[in-house]
């Protein structure tokens, strides 16, 4: 089981990067959805 720690570190780091990236995309999507809804709401009221 030599180097098991390195294999574990590589997979953990790799998956952490993918997961962190997915989270940033999901956050940006949520923020934009909120902005769009807010603006649409404002437009409706002003019409």
């Amino acid at each position: 089981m030599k180097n098991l720690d390195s294999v574990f570190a590589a997979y953990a780091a790799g998956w952490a990067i993918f997961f962190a990236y997915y989270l940033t995309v999901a956050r940006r999507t949520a923020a934009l959805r909120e902005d769009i809804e807010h603006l649409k709401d404002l437009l409706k009221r002003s019409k």
Partner: protein
Amino acid sequence: MMKHALGGALVVVLLVAAAYAAFFVAPTDVKQGLIYRILFLHVPSAWTGLVAFFVCFIANLLYVWRRAPRWDWLGISAAEVGLAFTTVVLVTGPIWAHPVWGIWWTWDARLTSTFVLWLLYVSYLVLRTLVEEPDRRALFSALFGIFAFIDVPLVFGSIRWWRTQHPQPVIMGEPGSGLDPTMRKVLFFSWLAMLGLMTLLLKARYRVEAMRGELETIRREAEVL
């Protein structure tokens, strides 16, 4: 929505199956032992990153030709996703190299060209923050993206054209090079899983750009009123 969730679930199943195959199906390498199993994350991530940069390149060319915003959206999305995969390559490579080579990093042709590739696409993203006017920003970044892609063939060819610390190619290499058939199958299966992940991330990232476009349209409409 249902289709989206199904696609995500399929990719997760593929990734779990690929990880299982990497640890329990592929035989242990006689020379390197357990550490070589990093190959099944490192190499598919590298190939997938190059595929994403190729998608970016095509989108950049199409933007210059057609000037349609959707090609700009695809370009930025593919550049970002390609960067995520290349970051995984640059992180997992040294973790693998240290026990095998005795060093974390060396400035050989493959490692250097990959690092330059990463820097080029980081610059692509930075460039976009420097230009405010959307059409100019899209055109400048498309032109820069076309230039940045020049490094992709260099990354591919670096271990074929020059002597490197990095191992010679195990796929499409010289006669006599290659992998054990089971390792090869696991490697291609892992790549398939990574391509699934790339598609998922690309679609999610593209949606962000499409929503930005929609937001801009609503803002313009609000300004008119």
